[in-house]
């Protein structure tokens, strides 16, 4: 099929050979699972269980809060031993509410786990509801609740479902391996999603460095007319949602908009697999495939890992380190985040654990920008990173924002090619965070101002009311007094008169 060009992008060494082709291997059940309640974009889930409670595999242990959220299910049967704070799989290393589960070793499914005979007989809302109930989120790493995206058909006229099998991050092979091993399950999930979205066209895009995955998916897709498989050029960031859609359909998503604005919804193959599991068998999302790889890992592997397993357990299973890693990353090397420590758990969005050697990281002390323009050529968004970086460094964040900072997707292509080794993504992340904080502060300020004004008005009104009440009372009192005084004067003169009369009489 015809593909369309996107501007920019880089060609990092893909290093997928380390873990590619290694069959997905189930990780032995660890001693303890630490299941964070915040594994998705949106509101934190609300725990449903108590300490010492026994739960079965697939039992809901936390429910979604609000429209953008996701429930969480027990990855295995066992006993809840903790309900508190635990270090998050997030570079901040801050703690997040976490349920700690001690597996009982039986891995016993919950009795109400039950699939649907014919998912295609369900209406869109019912499919979305089941996907929501299964706690499925975008498994490419974005972790946006999948059901919300499946519900977009109600608000937009959708034409196309794109399955993002590009896996453009170097090193990662989890989607590749899943596509090789479970093409039929993925295709089933894809068709269920297409049914829910009401689209007529499905395109599965896979980068050309995964010929086995392309072969497997193409064979599985051959019997469905509506499904096309496209071999994508190997270029990072091909997996960026909007860039992928442009490549496959030629249509460009408007800035600050959604791909749904041009009638397209994008999902990940692992999400499709999870949808298949949820609809056909009623199994909620309780495990995922993680690539444990990198030059410092002894035996790189693709593992099916129960959610909540400590990263330490994965690394242990992969024969620990071949050499001391310089960096430990959750996700790919281009957009992944450093792991604060090894105790942190695997989450629904954890697609890779990388242990990179110093040579692989290739870091150098930053030098001065020589305006070479490599970053301009590399930027897939058409920005001028060097100008934005200079503005951010000068503290001129508003200028950076008007130069397009908010159109930056943080893909890191600019920093990857920078000969001065400037931490461009760092500058931009800092500026975005600072601008967001300023926005919040401004909002708070205006809210405070509004409240203060309202309070002042209220106080003024109260005062006025009080004054008026006082004045009224005074008037009333005066009136009363006057009235009384009137009565008195009527009486008094009489008394006076009588007194006078008395006096007069006495005098007389």
């Amino acid at each position, binding site marked *: 099929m015809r593909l369309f060009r996107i*501007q920019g992008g880089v060609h990092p060494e893909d290093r997928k050979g380390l873990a590619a082709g290694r069959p997905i291997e189930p990780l032995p059940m660890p001693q303890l699972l630490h299941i964070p309640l915040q594994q998705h974009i949106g509101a934190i889930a609300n725990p449903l269980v108590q300490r010492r409670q026994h739960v079965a595999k697939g039992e809901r242990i936390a429910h979604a809060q609000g429209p953008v959220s996701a429930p969480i299910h027990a990855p295995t049967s066992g006993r809840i031993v903790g309900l508190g704070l635990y270090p998050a799989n997030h570079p901040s290393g801050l703690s997040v509410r976490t349920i700690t589960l001690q597996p009982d070793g039986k891995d016993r499914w919950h009795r109400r786990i039950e699939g649907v005979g014919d998912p295609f007989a369900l209406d869109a809302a019912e499919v979305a509801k089941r996907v929501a109930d299964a706690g499925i989120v975008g498994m490419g790493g974005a972790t946006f609740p999948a059901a919300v995206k499946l519900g977009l058909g109600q*608000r937009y006229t959708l034409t196309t479902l794109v399955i993002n099998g590009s896996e453009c991050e170097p090193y990662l092979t989890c989607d590749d391996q899943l596509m090789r091993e479970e093409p039929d399950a993925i295709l089933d999930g894809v068709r269920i999603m297409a049914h829910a979205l009401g689209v007529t066209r499905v395109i599965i895009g896979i980068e050309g460095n995964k010929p086995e995955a392309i072969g497997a998916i193409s064979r599985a897709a051959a019997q469905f007319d509506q499904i096309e498989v496209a071999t994508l050029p190997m270029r990072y960031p091909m997996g960026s949602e909007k860039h992928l859609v442009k490549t496959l359909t030629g249509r460009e998503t408007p800035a600050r908009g959604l791909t749904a604005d041009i009638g397209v919804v994008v999902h990940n193959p692992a999400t499709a697999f999870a949808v298949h599991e949820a609809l056909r068998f009623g199994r909620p999302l309780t495990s995922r495939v993680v690539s444990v790889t990198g030059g410092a890992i002894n035996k790189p592997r693709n593992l099916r890992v129960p959610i909540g397993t400590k990263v330490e357990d994965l690394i242990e299973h992969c024969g620990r380190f071949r050499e001391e890693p310089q*960096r430990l990353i959750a996700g790919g090397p281009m957009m992944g985040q450093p792991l604060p420590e090894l105790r942190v758990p695997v989450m629904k969005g954890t697609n890779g654990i990388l242990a990179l050697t110093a040579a692989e*990281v290739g870091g150098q002390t930053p030098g001065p920008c020589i305006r070479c323009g490599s970053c301009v050529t590399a930027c897939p968004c058409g920005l001028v990173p060097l100008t934005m970086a200079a503005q951010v460094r000068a503290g001129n964040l508003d200028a950076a924002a008007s130069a397009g900072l908010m159109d930056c997707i943080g893909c890191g292509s600019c920093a990857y090619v920078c*000969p001065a080794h400037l*931490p461009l993504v760092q500058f931009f992340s800092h500026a975005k965070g600072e601008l967001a904080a300023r926005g919040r502060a401004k909002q708070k300020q205006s809210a405070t101002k509004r409240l203060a004004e309202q309070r002042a008005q209220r106080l003024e009104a109260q005062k006025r009311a009080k004054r008026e009440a006082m004045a009224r009372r005074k008037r009333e009192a005066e009136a009363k007094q006057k009235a009384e005084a009137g009565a008195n004067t009527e009486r008094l003169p009489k008394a006076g008169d009588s007194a006078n009369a008395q006096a007069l009489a006495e005098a007389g």
Partner: protein
Amino acid sequence: MMQHTLVASPHAHAPVSIARSMRLVMLALVPATLLGLWQFGWPAILLFSVTLAAALLFEAAALLLAGKPMRPSLMDGSALLTGWLLALTLPPWAPWWIGVLGALIAIVVGKQVFGGLGQNLFNPAMVARVALLISFPLEMTQWVAPQPLFSQQAPGLLAAFGISLHGIAPPWDVLSGASILGDLAMEVQQGVDLTNMAPSLFPAVNAAFGSIPGSLGETSAILLLLGGLFLIRKRVIDWVIPTAVLLGVLVPATLLHWLDPVRFVGPLIHLTAGATVLTAFFIATDPVTSPVSRAGQLVFGAGIGLLIYLIRTFGAYPEGAAFAVLLMNAATPMIDHYLKPRVFGRDRRGRPLPVAEDAAKERG
């Protein structure tokens, strides 16, 4: 154990650095430089060494004065490259102080007063060359015919010191002559029919290989071209600027030569004579002083090429590469301001692209 420090992504880097780029550019200059040093002999070797050493010294002195760390800046090779490029554009037998003064102007005035690497508006080597040309027109236009090292006529090391200290005095003055472009300008002024003159005056083959009078490192168009192609292949420079410069020279040269071969020389001479190729691949591609976007680079390169042609053909100077580069350097901030790439999802004017009419049900 592992680093717990917060590090922003990406956690991988292309195998590039400023020092690597500078090293590769110098490597690409080696063949043309060696040829120049060989055919202009000891005086050229002295001038070259003095200019490079002075460039490094002035860089170190300026860093010291500014209180900046010396090692990273000296080690990145940028000062050495500036000195090198300047030396290549000097007359090969120019006295030593031309090289030193040029290095001073290039490094201190051209670069460090702006704030060092990456901050200068103008190409330092060209600033120095133009300043020297205007201040010392005599020393800057004394050309010699190639006298290969160890050949009979070539000056020995001792004689070379003499030339470097006292200038081209007898008996060496018999070797000096005009450059090709200088000759041409004179012929045109005297109304000579170029169709008869040019071929004998200007053997393009010699010019391509470099055995002609001219600046120290500008004489061999072929070696410079090979160096330039090597840089493009190594992705140190992009093809846009060199192509635009060459087209900027060649298109008007071809056109005018076709219209009036009596008054205008053909494109081959413009391509191989003077600093055309050196400028296209090594001077105009200076990252600091050229625009950052593709479109900007196209305009910038074409502007340089066109200005070179105009100055050579209609200006008072026989060669105009340095002037052309400086003029376009001055236009770079404006070019960068106007010729930005289109932002993804936005139109040229920065407004978000329209939403497909049929897509949003709510918005109608």
